[in-house]
């Protein structure tokens, strides 16, 4: 399953909630306000590093660019809409709204 997160990690607990459910290795996609988790140095960075230890973590470029996020935590894979479509083709999705 592809776990999808669209809320900021500083105002919602979606990321930590996913991390206690998603099995080791399950991919996680950050999109919409979820991409704020990708910012290095934010309070959420430790949580993101924990996620990266167990899951492939993706962030959608359009949402990063829209929000002026030019740099992401090392290990996060920035993908475009094509990559997004590939992920959705490969996995059933669990939108963690």
């Amino acid at each position, binding site marked *: *399953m592809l776990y999808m997160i669209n809320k900021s990690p500083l105002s919602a607990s979606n990321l930590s*909630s996913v991390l206690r*459910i998603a*099995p080791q290795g399950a991919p996680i996609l950050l999109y919409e306000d979820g991409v704020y988790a990708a910012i290095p140095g934010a309070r959420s960075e430790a949580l993101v590093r924990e996620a990266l230890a167990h899951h492939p973590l993706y962030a959608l470029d359009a949402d990063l660019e829209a929000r002026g996020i030019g740099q992401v935590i090392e290990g996060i894979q920035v993908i475009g809409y094509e990559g997004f479509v590939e992920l959705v083709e490969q996995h*059933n999705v*669990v939108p963690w709204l």
Partner: protein
Amino acid sequence: MSNKVVVLMRKAPYGSVYTAEAFRSIMGIAVFELDISVLFVDDGVYALVKGQNPAKLEMKPLGEAFPMLADVQVQELYVHDESLAERGLRPEDLVMEVKVVSSTQVAQILEGADKVLPF
């Protein structure tokens, strides 16, 4: 037709329209006799707490609607154990008997779905 649907409930009732809309969707899906499970995680577990009375909000009580789902053959209701415990709730605080499941079981239920409907 094998089309297993899991309705994922993660929001508290009343504060948003999610719980009520999820219930409407569940009823709609049940009409088509699809294989449906309802999974309560995080604040979603509040939807099942006993004693809800939103009369002063001029809303209908949502909790007591869920036991009625059995009448339309929706019988697979699961509640995440940690979500319940961290809110100081026990299974006996809920409006009905549900299957209490671990994080691993939650993941397995999601894994077994053809479609996950998030609310």
